[in-house]
């Protein structure tokens, strides 16, 4: 049985969160994402729940926890749309898994790495949503808009810096 020393990379960088934070932060992000575009339609390009999923996944460094968090947030988002349940659930679940897996190899405290991670995972989610709509739902009207998705990835990467900084305050050692 493998034992972690106090100084092992995994143990050093694994964080836990209070139950209230685990529940309220994703819920709050979904709520903000639903309310803000009503007053400021341009904000619809952001995906605050995605940034929260990536944050929890890279902070916990647990692929199972990342998958479950991503899936639950995605399914909750689906509940507010006219899409079938599972569209965002699958996409965010895979993103959560990938973010937690990459968190082992990358220093996620570095601001450049954080921006790069959010940019890449935003593009990954766009690609997954397109594939789900075309292949699983068989919707031929869905089109991939590369420029729009690139802009979304840039916006999410930019927003992730202050969001990660704010959420860092809720981290605690396991």
């Amino acid at each position, binding site marked *: 049985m493998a034992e972690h020393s106090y100084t092992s990379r995994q143990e050093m960088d694994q964080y836990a969160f209070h139950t209230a934070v685990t529940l309220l932060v994703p*819920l709050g992000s*979904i*709520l903000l*994402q*639903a*309310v803000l*575009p*009503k*007053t400021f*339609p341009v904000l*619809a*390009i952001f995906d605050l*729940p995605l940034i929260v999923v990536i944050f929890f996944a890279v902070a916990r460094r647990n*692929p*199972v926890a990342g*998958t*479950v968090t991503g*899936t639950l947030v995605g*399914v*909750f*988002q689906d*509940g*507010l*749309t*006219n*899409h*079938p*349940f*599972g*569209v*965002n*659930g*699958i996409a965010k*679940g*895979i993103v959560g*898994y990938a973010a937690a*897996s990459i968190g082992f190899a990358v220093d996620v405290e570095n601001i450049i790495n954080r921006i790069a991670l959010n940019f890449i995972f935003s593009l990954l989610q766009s690609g997954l*949503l397109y594939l*789900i709509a075309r292949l*699983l*739902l*068989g*919707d031929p*009207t*869905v*089109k991939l*808009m590369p420029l*729009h998705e690139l802009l979304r990835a840039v916006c999410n990467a930019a927003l992730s810096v202050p969001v990660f900084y704010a959420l860092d305050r809720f981290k605690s050692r396991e």
Partner: protein
Amino acid sequence: MESFLSRFKNSLVLITIVLVQAIGLAIQVQRPKEDAKTLGTDGQHTTLLRYWTVSLVTPFEKVIHWSSFDVWKVWSGYVGLRHAHQQNEQLELEIARLRQEQAAFAEDAAQGRRLQALLAFKQQYISQTVAAQVIGTSGVDSSRMLYLDKGSADGLKPDQAVITPDGVVGKLRDVFPHTAQLLLLNDATSGAGVVLESTRIRGILRGTANGRVQINNLTADSRIKPGEKVITSGGDQVFPRGLPVGVIESVAPDPQHQPYMAITIHTDANLSRLEEVLVITGTQATLPAAAEQDAALADAAAEENKRAADVIAEKLPSIGESGATGSTGSSGETGSTENSIRGVPGIPNSGLPKTVPVVHPDKYSPGAAPPAENLQPGGASAPQ
């Protein structure tokens, strides 16, 4: 076996979760087709799950909406009243202008209604609406859906049309006790039967993936031009006939659906900035009492205007009178009332008054030129 499970635990969990959701997607896509008539858009279990999700979020949305609404009400009620007097004067002028227009249209409208009655045409008039506030969005920009603060407790039902004073905005999707989902016209799953106002060409309007509104079931037609107004046709049984939708923005061949055209519509209502909407909860075959009263008032105003015009025409010295008392003209039809326009003799069937007889005739005077059959090549065209 145990070592395999522990080694690939993470991947197995991911695969299981994705697989379960993929199966769930397949069930949901199939089920609405079977249950469409009884359950609406979703299946029974899906509706329940959606209801729970919406119930959890909408109370917070309502709190946020009403708190921001109160702040705005204070601002607009006190601070924003600086130009109210000027605006009031402008609006009064606008009302006066619209009254005149209404009187002019009243006669045409009455004639239209008489013709519809003769043809037994079943027109649907909006008889009842419920005003609702937009409290939130779906939060996903590929799903163009809004949440309203009214629900089934206020008389809302799925598939009811939603409008603003500017035009059509969409229809209700799922309706919960105190909340309802408004599916906007520009959502990819949305649609409406429309007709082009001047050419009367019918089409089906659909939302696109990039949030635009298009008619893409019409083939190329030279009569379809940008700038033409688009109104609802009433054929979809959701939107009453004649509601404004928008104007044609562009007409281009649809590369994916040849030989059809992609006719892009600019909607009259600003779909990205909706605050208050009206849900049409009732329609009827006759004009509502209030509209009937307005129509009667407009009829009376039109009749009054007509009488006033007749009185003025009688009192003013008219060119017809001088023609009748003076020269009778070559045709001798001056005294005839058959072609007169409000007592003024005119050119038959042209709607134009007759010309005044000239005092000093020359070769350019009307009637001075001899008939064409009497003209000779090289001869004089008129008496010198």
